[in-house]
């Protein structure tokens, strides 16, 4: 109990004294997670819509596969990205292993299924009468799709929040492809892992509290956006 209390006090100290190292680690965590979720959103929202609005053979199977990948272990994605970008890998020539860039790529892959799948679920949740009403009002196929996406915006925003949560809280991938290099690729989760293994529980707890705090702020911001919608 005392450790938790001390962790809380230390977290507040680190936040309010703007500890440069903690700030740098926290900022990188936010930057990597936000960038990857943004990129994933740009890919997944049209991709999810494309799958939802088109009928093709194997659509159900494809959706099932996407949903299966919701729970893909982060270390599996990490391993895949590591192989891809290691010196001997097909993309090794890019020489971006152990950089924030490859961490972003890894997180994009990690959240792709969840964001695509939940976009499809969100669009599925829009009542068919909305589609009929849009079409009966003279909407073209594109205008109908836009109207439906607009109707599903709450579900889509929730999917984005969930994807951000998965991205900022993952540790396996960041460790494997980022390498936890101090001042370069160290993020909150990898720092917590390292400090715990070194026995500095208080600092780990403080970093954990900061991580939760960031997640809380992002959630509040997204909820505000949702309410304004």
């Amino acid at each position, binding site marked *: 109990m005392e450790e938790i209390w001390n962790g809380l006090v230390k977290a507040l100290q680190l936040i309010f004294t703007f500890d440069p190292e903690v700030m740098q680690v926290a900022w990188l965590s936010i930057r990597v997670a936000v960038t990857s979720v943004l990129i994933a959103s740009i890919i997944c929202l049209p991709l999810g819509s494309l799958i939802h609005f088109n009928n093709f053979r194997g659509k159900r199977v494809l959706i099932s596969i996407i949903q299966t990948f919701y729970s893909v272990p982060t270390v599996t994605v990490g391993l895949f990205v590591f192989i891809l970008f290691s010196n001997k890998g097909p993309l090794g020539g890019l020489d971006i292993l152990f950089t924030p860039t490859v961490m972003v790529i890894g997180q994009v892959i990690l959240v792709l299924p969840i964001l695509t799948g939940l976009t499809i679920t969100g669009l599925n949740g829009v009542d068919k009468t909305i589609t009929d009403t849009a079409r009966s*009002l*003279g909407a073209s196929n594109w205008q109908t799709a836009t109207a439906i996406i607009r109707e599903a915006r709450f579900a889509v925003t929730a999917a984005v929040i969930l994807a951000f949560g998965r991205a900022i809280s993952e540790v396996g991938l960041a460790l494997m492809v980022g390498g936890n290099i101090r001042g370069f690729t160290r993020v909150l989760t990898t720092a917590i892992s390292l400090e715990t293994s070194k026995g500095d529980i208080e600092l780990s707890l403080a970093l954990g509290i900061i991580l939760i705090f960031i997640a809380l702020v992002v959630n509040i911001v997204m909820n505000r956006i949702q309410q304004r919608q």
Partner: protein
Amino acid sequence: MAFIETINLGQRREGRDILKGVNLTVERGEVHALIGPTGAGKTTLLRLIDMLDRPNTGKLLINGVDVSMSEKTKLETRRRMAFVLQKPVVFNLSVYDNVAYGLKWRGFNRNQIHERVCGILETVDLGKYSKRNARTLSGGEMQRVAIARAIAINPEILLLDEPSANLDPVSAARIEDLIRKIIKQSAITVIMATHDMEQGQRLADKISVFIDGEIVQTGNAHEIFASPRNREVAEFVGMENIIDGVVVSNEGNMAAINVHGKTIEAITEFGVGEKVSVCIRPEDVTVALARMPSSARNSLAGMISWTAFSGPLCRIEIDCGFPLVALVTKKSAEEMGLKKGTQVYGTVKAVSIHIIARH
């Protein structure tokens, strides 16, 4: 050339024929009601006319043009129509944005949209709710938003699918008033589905009766309600007395029909020996305690077998060899002391009786 024409339109779903070769013609400016029981195929036909679904057979002509020619023709034609669904459907947006949606899709500019939307919201009496999210409104208000959204685009054709069916009586009456106002103010062509035959009678120029995926009869309200073509139509339009009989004589279309041993006189072209059904509306039966001298050709003696009061009216069934239902005012029933077991005479004029063939 009719403005709207469906030729042999058929729709099959899950092995069942929902529409069986429907031929419907609607003239420009006409208000045409499709009446029939739930599940008869009215909504399916409206959806095909609005091209929301593709028919299995037949085609749809608007102004003589086959609309199934291309997707472009479909979209262009659909943009001349508006469809109000049975369930009030609104987008999860403000009332203003809901009404503006169709105009935005047609490329109207902001000022034009503002002017049009504000005007229409006043017409449907929702001006004060323009900024409110449409999903927070009551069912009746939502349906008014849906109607406003439909008429905002100035459609040539308005399709209404039981627009007041799911509403409370007050909201339903308000929606009907609104529809009447729209019909009066514009030369719009309206096709409305309703299972409320009285609503069809009140609003429509022409009525088509839909039974089991087919149009069984088309005509004006008087033709449909006074002269139903067959037993199904007769039952649907409220002919409570449909009694089977056989024509025993016919002189100059004045026929005598044997009904359960009693003779009923009616005007019909059916010949001697033909099996018919005698249709009598309950409101056309006059009830008296004694046989009264009158010009009415049919006076049937019997005993009241039940009475049922409903508001200012009383429905009574007279057992005169066959059950004959009559409708009298509650006041008359009380003054005459009509109750179960009372001996009465049910009198019906020959001209009030409609005869249909019995199959």
